[in-house]
């Protein structure tokens, strides 16, 4: 029988996994949209405006899913993890508060003008709104990652009767793992949005879209991905070294190292066995793990055995890490290959377009896998060394949690299906519709929820 602790953990993981899908896209997509709008302001070329108009609709949809799934998060702490706020609320509260105050509001209020106000305010004010929304999404990431990193590597506080009291806010925010985690996550968002834009644009081209807008968007996405991925691999390595220093038990799980060893091999594949405390079916490159982590061929890596009560479950961390890294390497091959093909022959061959369509949600897989590494890797602690996950959970009966979890799961499955399906419908619609080439661009507006916009589209279709 599942108890309240494990059900609450599954529920939190479900909610936050569903939530993160959307901000991961919108954080970087907001900047891509600002780029489109700025290019339009500079060049007056309507093709940029068309790219803007399509992507701002995708952004609105994605953002709405992010907002509603985010509301759930602010309730989770009280409903399922009362111990969290009771013990570290003095620190977590203000960080969450700044997230709500600076970011959430900035985005949600300026979004109204960004989405609906293009005809109602001067173009500059509109571009400014889009810019503020982009700042807001990024600030949001800043505060959330500050809190998450503090939970991983807490500093700048003192404990009195088990309750954490802040001593230095700078030390709390800029804790040891924060700069690495923030950069790693922002780049992850950049990659997710790049492959997302490239994938949907490739889908439009595959479906026979002859226009320039999807080609420009495809090129933008692919170029960004090709630039981001090597930086991400570099930053990811730095982040790993930082983790090795501050949370060695997490690295031991990532690398599947059970006993402390020198010249540890890099495991390409293995099946970690928590019972026997060993790996089966290892495929390994000798000494590589030591080389990567310590920059010495015979460097020492601490094994799980050194942390008898304080280590995470090895298998999920081990596999999630390999999925993330594998996805990163795939991204490297696809984005550089795609850029090379684009440079050589202007138009991508169909197989390359199909590959990009297949990679549309590659960023989701890598990001989720990465978060599973870092979050499961922190267990059994909720706040490393301060609060154990089991001590923070609610005393309510498991049946209540089972009920809400079922409810969320059903809703999320339906919504994910509807989201992806709607993206498809929007892409197909834009293949047929000429958008607004015949109109004054400024009068276009993105009034997607108005009766007139559907009329305009059906008029466009009848022209075809």
């Amino acid at each position: 029988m599942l108890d309240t602790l494990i059900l609450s953990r599954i529920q939190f993981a479900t909610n936050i996994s569903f939530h993160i899908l959307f901000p991961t896209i919108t954080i970087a997509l907001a900047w891509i949209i600002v780029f489109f709008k700025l290019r339009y302001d500079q060049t007056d070329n309507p093709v940029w405006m068309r790219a803007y108009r399509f992507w701002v609709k995708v952004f609105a949809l994605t953002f709405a899913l992010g907002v509603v799934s985010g509301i759930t998060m602010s309730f989770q702490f009280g409903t399922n993890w009362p111990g969290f706020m009771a013990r570290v609320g003095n620190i977590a509260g203000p960080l969450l508060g700044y997230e709500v105050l600076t970011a959430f509001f900035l985005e949600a209020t300026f979004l109204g003008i960004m989405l609906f106000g293009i005809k109602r305010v001067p173009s500059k004010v509109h571009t400014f709104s889009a810019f503020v929304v982009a700042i807001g999404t990024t600030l949001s990431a800043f505060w959330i990652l500050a809190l998450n990193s503090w939970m991983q590597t807490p500093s700048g506080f003192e404990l009195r009767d088990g309750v954490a009291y802040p001593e230095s806010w700078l030390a709390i925010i800029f804790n040891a793992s924060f700069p690495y985690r923030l950069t790693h996550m922002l780049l992850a968002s950049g990659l997710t949005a790049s492959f997302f834009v490239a994938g949907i644009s490739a889908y439009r081209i595959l479906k026979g879209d002859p226009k320039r807008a999807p080609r420009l968007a495809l090129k933008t996405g692919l170029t960004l991905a090709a630039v981001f991925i090597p930086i991400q691999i570099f930053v990811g390595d730095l982040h790993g070294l930082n983790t090795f220093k501050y949370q060695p038990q997490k690295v031991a799980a990532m690398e599947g190292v059970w006993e402390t060893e020198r010249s540890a091999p890099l495991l390409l594949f293995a099946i970690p066995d928590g019972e026997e405390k060993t790996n089966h079916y290892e495929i390994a490159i000798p000494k590589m793990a030591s080389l990567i982590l310590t920059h010495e061929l015979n460097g020492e890596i601490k094994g799980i055995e050194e942390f008898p009560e304080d280590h995470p479950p090895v298998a999920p961390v081990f596999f999630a890490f390999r999925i993330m890294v594998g996805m990163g390497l795939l991204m490297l091959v696809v984005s550089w290959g795609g850029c090379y093909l684009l440079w050589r022959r202007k138009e991508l061959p169909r197989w390359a377009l199909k590959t990009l369509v297949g990679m549309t949600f590659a960023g989701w897989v890598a990001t989720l896998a990465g978060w599973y590494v870092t979050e499961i890797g922190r267990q059994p602690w909720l706040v490393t060394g301060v609060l154990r996950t089991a001590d923070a959970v609610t005393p309510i009966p498991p049946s209540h949690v089972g009920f809400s979890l079922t409810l969320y799961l059903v809703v999320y499955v339906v919504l994910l299906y509807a989201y992806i399906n709607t993206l498809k419908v929007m892409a197909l619609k834009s293949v047929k519709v000429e958008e607004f080439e015949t109109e004054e661009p400024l009068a276009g507006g993105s009034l997607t929820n108005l009766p007139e916009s559907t009329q305009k589209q059906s008029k466009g279709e009848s022209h075809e």
Partner: protein
Amino acid sequence: MSEAASSAAYWLPVIFIGLMGLAVLVYAILDGYDLGVGILLPLGEEDEAQRDTMIASIGPFWDANETWLVLAIGLLLIAFPIAHNLILMHLYIPAAIMLVGLILRGVAFDFRAKAAVGYKLTWDRTFKAGSIITTLAQGYMLGQYVMGFQPGWQAQLFSAVSALGVTAAYSYMGSTWLVLKTETQLQERAVRWARRAGRATLLGVVAVSAINPLVNPTVFDRWFSYPLVMFVLLIPTLCFLAFIFNDLLLARLPKTNDRHSALPFALVVTIFLMCFTGLAFSFYPDIVPGQLNIWQAASATVSLKFILVGALIVIPVILIYTAFSYRVFRGKATELHYH
């Protein structure tokens, strides 16, 4: 006590309960009207154009409106973590149901415009259902809160009355919003909705106001002790007058040149303000009625100071920006796509 009264430990919780109260009030008014519009959404085939206009009238605002809920819950979480824990543990199931309602209506809003045409009505139904679920859950939770989370059928009954009352009140808000933002047939329809919703709301308010002091002796003492009674009875009196005046006014709407079309909405805002003041007056300084006051539930003073700086800078900016946004989108919703 005089020394304590001047200290930060005394004042910070007071300031934060004020800010939180502001956030709850603004949320109830703002999301109140857009939830109300959702509740009223007519689902007939011939109503599609009206549905489009109704939804267009809340289009630019709903994201920001729901954010006030995040701020209110956020402030509760930040400033009064123990109360946040206690309240949400008691309200676990209704909170989960409300969240699902909010999720459904939020996404339905965007999907209806972007999904395949064949699914539009399905999303409109989802939008309406989500709005109703959210509202009922909020009303139920308000009832539970007022009853201090007591078990028993009386509390359940009271919460059920409260759920219906809040549904009527949001419909009232939503219909007067539509009177303000629409014209011709839809406006006439909204006027009819507003009159009916207004009367239902009055019933709900009377029921809740009568039961609350009867079941909570402390509330009774507070309201009916001389000489305060002379002053505080202004609140229900003003509230009642606003109901009556609004009903009479609505009977005469719409007028030529659309005169006074904003007044019903303003009157409903006044009613909300009065009801909210009444509730706050009943319970302050308790944050969980009869169990926990704001000083017992407050976070550490350093934490409150740190967040106060941000709150005092950001909240006025948000209010100014919200006003600006409403100015940009002023006028009738049907005009949103002209110019």
